[in-house]
């Protein structure tokens, strides 16, 4: 497996870096090599934020994603900024709660109102990141789902494990039913 490059993008407070850490830790559990980097402003909420995860079975030299195999965009700004760095066969996942215009339709484009679904089904937008992460992992299968669940348990605070497992499973379900 050559480098598989993922960018999770949106704005500060949407939990993208946490999602990146959970995904990266799942890759470690699967005995793969991984780097996870991030970029964010000095503010703790708002401003643009992104997390990159590169997964490989070889040594990873440059740790930032450059040509994405998969891009998750939770805001219009992030989508506009990074869309054109998606590989030709790459997977694009957008949150239509905030992304209203797609400047370019990737071949594999998945559009769902993740934030609205989080509020409606789980009572809060706070789980948007994990719903989207579950959705992504079922689609791209870059880590095993067992490892993702284990990583999630090891990473989030104990009080939030159940809620996040629910969110992850909801993400899986949404992927199975997509387009049906």
């Amino acid at each position, binding site marked *: 497996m050559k480098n598989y490059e993922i960018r999770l993008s949106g704005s500060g407070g949407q939990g993208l870096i946490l999602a990146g850490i959970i995904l990266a830790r799942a890759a*470690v559990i699967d005995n*793969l090599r*991984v780097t*996870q980097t991030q970029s*964010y402003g000095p503010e703790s909420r708002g401003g643009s934020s992104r997390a990159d995860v590169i997964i490989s079975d070889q040594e990873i030299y440059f740790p*930032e994603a450059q040509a994405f195999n998969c891009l998750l965009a939770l805001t219009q700004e992030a989508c506009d900024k990074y869309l054109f760095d998606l590989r030709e066969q790459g997977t694009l996942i957008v949150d239509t709660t905030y992304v209203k215009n797609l400047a370019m339709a990737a071949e594999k484009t998945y559009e769902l109102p993740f934030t609205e679904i989080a509020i409606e089904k789980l009572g809060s937008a706070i789980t948007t990141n994990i719903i989207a992460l579950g959705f992504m992992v079922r689609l791209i299968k870059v880590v095993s789902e067992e490892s993702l669940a284990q990583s999630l348990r090891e990473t989030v605070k104990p009080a939030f494990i159940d809620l996040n497992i629910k969110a992850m499973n909801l993400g899986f379900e949404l992927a199975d039913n997509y387009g049906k």
Partner: protein
Amino acid sequence: MPNSKKTTKTTKAAAKETKAQQTDTALKELESKSKRKNVLMQGNEAVSYGALDAGCNFFAGYPITPSTEIAEILAAELPKRGGVFIQMEDEIASICAITGASLAGAKALTATSGPGFSLMQEGIGFAKITETPCVVVNVQRVGPSTGMPTSPAQGDIMQARWGSHGDAPAIVLYPDSVKECYELTIRAINLSEKYRTCVILLLDEVLGHMRESVRLPDMENVRVINRIKPTVPPHWYKHYDENQKYLSPLASYGEGYRFHVTGLTHDALGFPTNKATEGAEMMERLRKKISYNIRDLVQIESHQLEDAKIALFAAGISARSAKAAVAIARSEGVKVGLLRPLTIWPFPDEAVRKMLQHVETVIVPELNQGQLIHEIKRLTKDKSDSNVIGLQRVNGKMITPNDILRKIKEVM
């Protein structure tokens, strides 16, 4: 009374439980001292665990992005292990506190970033002239001044060498991976103890915050060096006694040894002196303990240089860009290699001279307006420096492998 006792117990048990829940996977991994497994770890975490494994038992600092996690982790971990963590009022106080702690026998470390590093310069000079072991971690961010706190830059390479006034040598280490953050933190502490000086560990913002899959070495494979203690009775003790290779034993306050510590030029007992001979002797001592031990101090990585026509010279995170560029260039049949210093000061003159004999061109990618490149130019034999080419970036973004490849194609 029995009631209050019970309450204490319950509170303690509750606290213990909360702590257990908060224990991070990486930390659990650290606590198992052998058969360590692969874990996901951040550069700053690796620095903290390296410090703990090297025996650091004192941290005084003023938390600053992008080094904050080091203070955060050591604040939680040092007290558990009988160590001390103090959050100081500023960085001047921080460097002074770790110097004082070290004189009392502690293995002391602080962590900061550019603005704090500037404030620490006078204290670093004091640690050097008083030959007091300590380590300063500087996770660099964009400057000058407060710059861009969450973006990478390599602007402090020369400051790490020349930041303090006066003319003292420096030992500065520079990792390029999370694993090396761990290893070089241990090495920095070891070298500070061995050479009785302030050792600086430079990190890049990206590396401090980056997470990677790493397997730390088992504790039985970690080599820890402790300062040499005097064997003479207290009345014979000289604080700056010239021993083999200019490394002399160091007593701690509180052990019955009396010594004087001053930032003024001093004699072997530590008392101020204005005598030319004694002043020269002290300066020679500071110089020689570094320059007579270059082989012990300098570490480099030679990456695919054997048959290279074009060499890259890069340190820290820019070396990761360079390694990616080497891999792509090689896949296209272009003979490129990389020389990477793990020790940037003292500068690896010998390795660079050897490289310059074999390659036609050297490209120096760095996240500043040109600092390391001047060291390469200094070593070019014929003083013509047209074959040493800079690649610089100061906008808070990393140099990409493609930036380097473009430069390689320009010079081909």
